[in-house]
Structure formats: C-alpha cells, structure tokens
C-alpha cells in the first residue's frame, strides 16, 4: 500500500497551509467535476516570489496531500521556477508513481497554483 503510506495520510488528516490568507493578492480555483475534487489557492506574492500561501477545498487523500505538500514546497519559490514544476515533481513529493486514473487528482493543486501565478 505504497500510495497510502503514513506521510500521505498525515498530510491528508493534518493538511499544512490549510485555510485562508488575509494578505492574499491572488487566488484561483480548480475543480474536477467527475470526482468532486476542488482546490482553492490564496497566495501573497512579493518580488516575484511566493511570500505565503493557503489552500482550501476538498478531495481524495492524494489530492489533499498533494496540495499540502506543494504549498510547503512553493513557499519562498520564484514564480518562474513554479511554472517549471511538472507531474514528475509532484510524484517526487508524494514519493510514488501514479496510475493514469489518479494523475488528475495529484495534479489539480499544481494546476491551481500555476494558474494563479501565471502572468504575475
């Protein structure tokens, strides 16, 4: 049960950076209607860097853990570097490779973050 190891379940049960950000200057939302996964991102950007970030929404363990881990990773990152992140990086964070049916779950938070910061 590689996919549901302790670390992922821990991020699912105790998500980091979950909630709202009062100083946010950009937000975005992504959703997968077929399974109901939904991620909202609130970001405070300064000097082309992510100063702070929060996420909210609901989804499966893979989706929520991915959001939690990603928000930790991107804090302090340059926007130009964030735009370079791919499925490969998400899989590295999750510590596993994903079957095709679960890729969308794991990528939804990254898509929301990239959409938010794109063009900033």
């Amino acid at each position, binding site marked *: 049960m590689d*996919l549901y190891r302790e670390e992922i*379940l821990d991020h699912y049960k105790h998500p980091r950076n979950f909630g709202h950000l009062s100083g946010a200057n950009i937000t975005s939302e992504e959703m997968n209607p077929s*399974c109901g*996964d939904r991620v909202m991102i609130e970001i405070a950007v300064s000097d082309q860097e992510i100063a702070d970030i929060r996420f909210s929404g609901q989804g499966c*363990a*893979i989706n929520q853990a991915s959001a939690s881990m990603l928000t930790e990773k991107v804090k302090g990152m340059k926007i130009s570097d964030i735009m370079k992140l791919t499925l490969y990086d998400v899989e590295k964070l999750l510590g596993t490779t994903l079957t095709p049916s679960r890729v969308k779950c794991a990528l939804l938070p990254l898509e929301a973050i990239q959409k938010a910061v794109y063009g900033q």
Partner: protein
Amino acid sequence: MNVRADFPQLTRFINGKPIVYLDSTATSLKPRSVIDKINEYYTQYTANVFRGIYTTSEEATSEYEKAREKVATFIHATPHEIVFTRSTTESLNLLAYSLHPKEVVASILEHHSNFVPWQQLSYLTVWDPEKPIDSVMTNKTDIFAITAVSNVTGIIMPIKDIVRTVKGINPKCLIVVDAAQAVPHMPVDVADWGADFVAFSSHKMLGPTGVGVLWGRRQLLEEMKPFNYGGEMISEVHVDRTVFKEPPHKFEAGTPHIAGVIGLGAAVDYLTKLGMDNVRKHEEELVSYAIKKFKEVRGLRFVGPDIRSGVFAFTMEKVHPHDIAQILNEDNIFVRAGNHCAMPLHEHLGIVATARASFYVYTTKEDIDALILGLQKIQKLFS
C-alpha cells in the same frame, strides 16, 4: 447458485491473490459458453449475413437470427420487434434521432445515456420520482424516459404503473424504458410493462460488449425513419430512390457485430437455463446479506432503498470514494468510484461521488465478506 466454475476470469490470480469482482453493473463477466460460441463463429462459419448463397453464410445468418428469436423470447416479445444496435446508448440515440420529439420528460435517476440525448435534441423536463408524474407531464409531452432499475440506488421502478399513469395523462406520449440494469437481473416482460420502447445491453447480461438491443412496438418501428443509411438495411436502391427493408433490418445498416449477437444468444441461453426468477432470488439474498454486513462498517452510508437490485452506491465518513476504490484494489477487490454516469442524480442527492459495489450470478457472500473486511481496513487507516 454455484456457477463460479463457468466464469474463466474468476480463476485468475493477480499478485498471487484471487479477484473479487464487484462491478457487474458496469459490465458482467462472461461464461465459458458465451466465449465458446463467439469462437465458434470465428473458427467455423465466419461469413457475412444475409448475402451468401453458400453454406457458412447461411449458417451465420441462421445463428444471427436465432439469437434474435432467443432475445425476443427472453423478454416476451416477437423477433421482428428486436433491433440490434451497438449499445443501450445507441438504442436510445436511435430513438432520439428518429423520433425527433419536441418535449421529453426524463427521471432524475437516469443514466446519462437516457438523459443527454433528450437534453441535447429536445426540450427536457426532469421528473423527481418522489413527486407525482402530472407535476411535470403535460398533454404535449412526446416522450417519457424512465429507467427500470437505477444503476446507483438500485431502486426497481414500477414501470407498469408509470406506463398507466403516463398514458392516462397523454395517450400519445411514448414511453422509453432503459432496461440495461433490469433485463440482466430479473424477469422482464415487455408486453406486461406496456411501454413503447425498451433498450438494454448485451455486455451487462453475460454477453459480449458492442451489442445493444432495442425493442419497439411493431407499428412504431414501421412508421419510424431509419437512423443509419447504407447496406444491409435496404431492399431496393435506384439512382433516384431507395426502398428500405422492413423492421428490424431497416435499423441495422452495415455489417452488424455478428459474433457479438451470436454470443448474446448464448448468454440468453445461459440465463434462461439458470432461470431469471433464480437470478433475482440470488441477488435478493445477497442484498439482504450486504445490508446486514454494511452495519459493521462505521461511517458507511448507502443511497437508496432496502428492496433493490444488487447494486450499492455508498459513502464513508472522511474517505473519498476514489481512495476507497484504490485501496480495495490493493486486495483485488474491484469496485467503481465516481458518479457512475448519473451526475444529475448525484447533484440531486447532494453527493459529489460514491463508491459502488454490485453483484451478479457469480457473486458470493464471501465476496461481500471480503469487501466488508477491506472497508473496515480503510476505516481504520483513515480514522
């Protein structure tokens, strides 16, 4: 009912473990006799139907038409009212395109296949079965589309009563029944239902994929325009005009899925031998056993009534259906997760997605025990 030995796939081991197949509502497993019959066509009398003078073509045609007779007998109809299509979906699209209804009422329970064609090609009003039919139907309603069994809640709809009510409001309204989840699981008598059209699929009733059935009243089929034009469905073609064949062949343009139809005939033989009353009884036993066992899983809730067909869509507290399906898969327990092609129903119920376990003739109480054990494991993992 002890038929597991008839289903080759049930002998398969994945990662050293047997499989627990609980997704028969999506598609059923196939018995050896069906696979052999398909093989027989491909090894003994591969030929096109309706055109050869030679032996194998006549054999293929005869087997193809014999399958039509078997399907007709199975649902208490006559063979010339049985049209072979590609799927239930195609059967329903055939109706939507050929009948061109202006106003359609469909229930909120419908699978997308008995919903989207009407929504896209007509003016669609939705019926909530908890409300009276005359709250949505008018004397202008052309078609009333209704499922016989929900693929989510498992509810068995009282088709005969619904037909009577609908015809009472508007005798001209045509009633289209999606029987994809009914014909495989219980005795169905289309004459007794009194509807105008009934659609179902081969692959959910032990037959091969790629074959659907449309039953329609003879007179209506005669009046309707063809859905596809081309070979096989014509009797004369001239430069300026074409004379079509009589139904059902008028609706079967092109070389059909000959092996598939013949395979469906074998599936009907298999189910007839089991007896559809026994099939239903077996599922009733599994349903009451499952309802009892579900109580042993904390936080589990299934949607729909206790009296139902053998399908349960359910949710678990704190666990997303995708996670349920994925973790069960680790133990080769195969269930589906999502909205099961019934998104309007899920929205109506206020649920984003469910996990779904479904049963058929080869399902055993041990399969349900394995499911419960798996769910308890998940419950522990996520609590």
